């Protein structure tokens, strides 16, 4: 039987993409203490960017990825300036409703621009299957995985070794102390938000050749990212990475055992179970959910 290697390979491919979405979400939470309820909408916009470039300009999604990178980053930065900056220090409820409002507005914008119909990016290679050691893997999925790993690794390296990354980690640890050390936390927040949005936007671009695009597709992916981020401990980037693989594993094995129709129930129940049993996540600090940091 080739089932087990196939399931493992699918888990890793899927988990890599979930990781890129989740890492952006957890980075924003870790540094800014904001749960971004509009995260999925930026994924959706990334997918539509690929779709538009493909149908209007005939650009391949991977070319769009390179050319569109400044656009995605700029869009993230702009959304921070316009929407998030005034509420960075506001209460949780204000932040929740602000990002929810952003989510509604962006979804509706997509509805007006592209209608509610599913759109497809039909590249010439969309059905190419790579066979390797008895496993059959979709080429676009492998490419998406490769891009996701590349970006996640770059982000980790950036956070670990660059001076700016260090500044961001310092702000995550204690924003007041960071400000006292002369760190311009406002700029750090803007950068964090833009980087987090770039991660999820990039994920959107590379997912476009694999999934149909419609205005509310973000929710489907962002729910998975919430599960991964809470499981890994909100704000914990390594935790999010491992948890993404766990969630992908649950999804892949669940689809195989009980069918694709009910797979979402599995990870949602997993999510509720984590929230009830250990809301701080596998690696997070106990009690974070009670303090509501």
């Amino acid at each position, binding site marked *: 039987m080739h089932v087990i290697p196939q399931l493992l390979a699918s888990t890793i491919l899927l988990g890599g993409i979930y990781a890129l979405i989740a890492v952006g979400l957890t980075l924003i939470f870790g540094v800014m203490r904001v749960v971004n*309820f509009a995260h999925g909408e930026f994924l959706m916009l990334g997918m539509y960017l690929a779709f538009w470039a493909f149908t209007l300009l005939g650009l391949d999604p991977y070319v769009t990825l390179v050319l569109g990178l400044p656009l995605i980053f700029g869009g993230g930065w702009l959304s921070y300036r316009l929407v998030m900056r005034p509420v960075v220090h506001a209460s949780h*409820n204000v932040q929740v409703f602000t990002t929810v409002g952003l989510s509604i*507005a962006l979804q*509706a914008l997509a509805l*007006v621009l592209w209608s509610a119909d599913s759109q497809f990016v039909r590249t010439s290679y969309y059905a190419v299957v790579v066979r390797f050691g008895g496993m059959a893997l979709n080429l676009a999925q492998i490419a998406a995985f490769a891009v996701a790993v590349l970006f996640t690794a770059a982000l980790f390296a950036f956070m670990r070794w660059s001076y700016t990354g260090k500044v961001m980690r310092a702000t995550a640890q204690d924003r007041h102390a960071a400000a006292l050390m002369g760190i311009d936390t406002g700029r750090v927040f803007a950068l964090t938000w833009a980087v987090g949005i770039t991660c999820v936007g990039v994920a959107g671009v590379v997912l476009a050749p694999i999934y149909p695009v419609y205005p509310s597709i973000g929710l489907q992916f962002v729910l998975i990212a919430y599960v991964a981020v*809470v499981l890994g401990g909100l704000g914990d980037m390594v935790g999010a990475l491992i948890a993404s693989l766990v969630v992908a594993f649950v999804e892949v094995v669940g689809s195989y055992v009980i069918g694709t129709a009910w797979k979402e129930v599995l990870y949602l129940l997993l999510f509720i179970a984590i*929230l009830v049993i250990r809301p701080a996540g596998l690696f997070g600090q106990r009690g974070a959910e009670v303090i509501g940091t």
Partner: protein
Amino acid sequence: MRGTWPAVAFFAAAALGPIVVRDAFFLDSLILILLWGASAAAWNVAGGYAGQVSLGHAAFFGLGAYSAALLGTRWGVSPWIGLVVGAVLATAFGFILGFLSNRLRGPYFVLATIAFSQVLLIVASRWRGFTSGSEGIPVPFRPGFWTLGIADKRVWVYLVLVLAALLYLVQLYLERSRRGYQLAAVREDEDAALSLGVPARRLKVAAIAASAALTAACGTLWAQYVGFVDPYYVFSVDLSVRFCLATILGGIGTPLGPFLGAAFITLLETSLRARFGGIGAGLVGIYLIIYGVVLILMVRFAPQGLVPWIGDRLRWRPRLGPTA
């Protein structure tokens, strides 16, 4: 009964509406305003008064809608019994949700409620044998008051007016009773409330359960009025957002706020639908863009909502109101 005159005026105007105007479009808008206002008021019980901000209240709305629709189509049971069954089910689920998420605060609680409503959405849309899956359920029209097969919209106005008035009174109770003050204490500072001997945990669960039951009742009436239950609508996050949007707009934690917010939203929606509906369905999305922008601007510039804002201008202040 200080401070209730605007509400008395609002409900009196709603009651006079069907007598003065016979236009079906006007009556339809009035019914929807009262229904959405009642739903938002039910959300306000948990989200506003108890501070348990939920983005999963559509789950309870859907439970109410589905209970009556399924009991009616499968076993010919009256929607009134369906309403009670839906409310009982929602109370049970409200207790479960409230109990399980008792320790969670802030964004964690919001995430838990979203996950909860998504589970119900998946069950309703995938369990084909029982719920007819994603196709939804058309509610058959059976003439008579007992079966809620009422063609006369004026009767509907008074039906939902009773529900709306009931919800207003529930909120008034929460604003003026000992229980309400305790809830406000829990909302503002749970640890301080606990240390003063307020049974914070129990109160939160009770508020969520009561809010769930009331939301389910609204769901039942809505489904019977509209005549169709679509799982992707009644269990959607969008619907949950609609409840809290109306409440925030009107004034979170005020008894009249949800109704005024719902009136604003419903009028905006129907007028834009009427204007753009014929040209392109995509343009209907414009009112959703306005929703989103209004929500962002409201929480930033007038987080207490329109009612206290107008109250300030008129030198009249509702007694309580959380600071967002």
